[in-house]
């Protein structure tokens, strides 16, 4: 099954590359068209902990996730770009397997999520404006999502400042799955839909020859079913669990600052800070520092470190500590009072004229294997959850004929 999806992924990339070639060969095109860029990405993620919300805040959180992804950016003409992002998540989860612990291996023990996002952008150089629209679909066993979005970017006359505004709407439908012992007790939720409305703004500014910053903010409004129906919650007054209940709306307000400083030919500093607040009572701060070091003209390594802390949501309590008179309740430790550390190392190799050239089937011109990037990180959360992730990005460039 996974081989079938992998072949589909490769076929999608090759077909899009072929479209790029055909566009490039069009004799009506007189101006030079930028090459098509193809990025093949993949990651392997594994985590373990002992606070699964599926079993009420106790029990294994063991999970693995493999995510092959392909991103293709094809210039259709000198001002229009087509961007296709297609990927899958193959995950297996001991935690969700406990929705029905009486089966040896239930349908919830593993699943595949497939997602595709197609975007079109037009760059009007004369007015320094880029407009874009995008649509997307995501499908997994118990969750289907449609998204549509649009964005607008305006650069300053001197090229030192840029303002971006974007909006995105997600329309999600959820297949209701209750824990096995609660399935014959009626409905616990009134809706199976979720809508998310995201608005974002980013201002980028060059400060001097070595320093540039960007300020970003999102305003997010979510409504509908925001709880997870197979999460159990245990109470002080009774032994039997209930299904997690959370408010039907949520406002999120994150504000971020990114600052990049070129310290010298061998050393750069990339800093990210975020303040986050939401209507469920979570307030958080994130600091991340990455320090790329050049070991050669085309080879760099970058150690990075991230610290995160948050206050608990108003509706969180650990296993067996909720009271029955509460309207909303969850024992999901993702919403608890916590802090986390992440540390890792990345390696990037990107020679000026690429790593190698080869011919792809369907694509006439030789394809340039441009760059390779590999990064790995270890993650520790204060409640004992720990995770490891390794990811890679292979960059290719398919030159146009004209």
């Amino acid at each position, binding site marked *: 099954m996974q081989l079938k999806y992998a072949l589909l992924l490769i076929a999608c990339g090759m077909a899009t590359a072929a479209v790029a070639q055909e566009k490039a060969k069009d004799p009506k095109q007189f101006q030079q068209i930028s090459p098509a860029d193809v990025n093949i990405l993949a990651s392997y993620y594994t985590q373990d902990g002992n606070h699964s919300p599926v079993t009420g805040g106790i029990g294994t959180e063991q999970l693995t996730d493999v995510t092959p992804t392909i991103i293709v950016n094809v210039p259709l003409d000198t001002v229009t770009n087509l961007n296709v992002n297609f990927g899958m998540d193959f995950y297996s989860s001991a935690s969700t397997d406990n929705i029905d612990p009486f089966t040896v291996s239930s349908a919830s023990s593993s699943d595949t999520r497939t997602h595709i996002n197609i975007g079109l952008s037009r760059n009007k150089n004369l007015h320094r404006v880029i407009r874009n629209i995008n649509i997307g679909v995501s499908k997994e066993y118990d969750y289907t999502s449609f998204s549509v979005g649009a964005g607008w970017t305006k650069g300053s006359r001197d090229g030192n400042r840029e303002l971006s505004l974007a909006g995105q709407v997600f329309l999600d439908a959820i297949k209701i799955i209750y824990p096995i012992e609660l399935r014959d007790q009626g409905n616990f939720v009134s809706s199976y839909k979720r809508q998310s409305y*995201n608005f974002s703004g980013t201002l980028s500014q060059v400060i001097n020859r070595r320093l540039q910053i960007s300020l970003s903010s999102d305003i*997010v409004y979510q409504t509908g079913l925001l709880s997870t129906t197979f999460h159990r919650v245990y109470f002080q007054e009774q032994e039997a669990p209930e299904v997690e209940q959370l408010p039907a709306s949520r406002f999120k307000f994150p504000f971020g600052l990114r600052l990049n400083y070129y310290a010298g030919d061998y050393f750069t500093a990339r800093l990210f800070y975020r303040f986050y607040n*939401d209507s469920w009572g979570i307030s958080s701060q994130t600091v991340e520092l990455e320090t790329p070091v050049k070991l050669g003209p085309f080879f760099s390594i970058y150690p990075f470190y991230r610290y995160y802390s948050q206050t608990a949501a108003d509706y969180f309590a650990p296993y067996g500590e909720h009271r029955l008179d509460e309207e909303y309740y969850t024992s999901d430790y993702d919403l608890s009072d916590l802090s986390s550390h992440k540390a890792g190392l990345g390696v990037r190799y990107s020679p000026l004229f690429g790593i190698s050239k080869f011919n792809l089937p369907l694509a006439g011109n030789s394809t340039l294997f441009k760059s390779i990037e590999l990064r790995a990180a270890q*993650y520790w959360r204060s409640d004992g959850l720990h995770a490891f992730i390794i990811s890679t990005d292979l960059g290719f460039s398919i030159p146009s004929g004209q």
Partner: protein
Amino acid sequence: MKAKINIKLLLATSGLLMLMSSCEAIKPYQKTYLNEEEMQLSMRKPETFEVNFESYREGGSGANGGKVGGGCGCN
């Protein structure tokens, strides 16, 4: 507590305004350092996987080009 947050906010805003007001007019030919791959303000492509899992395992997300809500069941 509120006064303390307001002071922090005031200091942060003042710092940002001072930083913005000290901007130099940089010509395109003076952007050699700024055009370096490592100086790009966007997130690295493989970093998106990490931003995704962080948005599932933590309550806070967004303001970094990553996922902020909707689109998946997120186990």
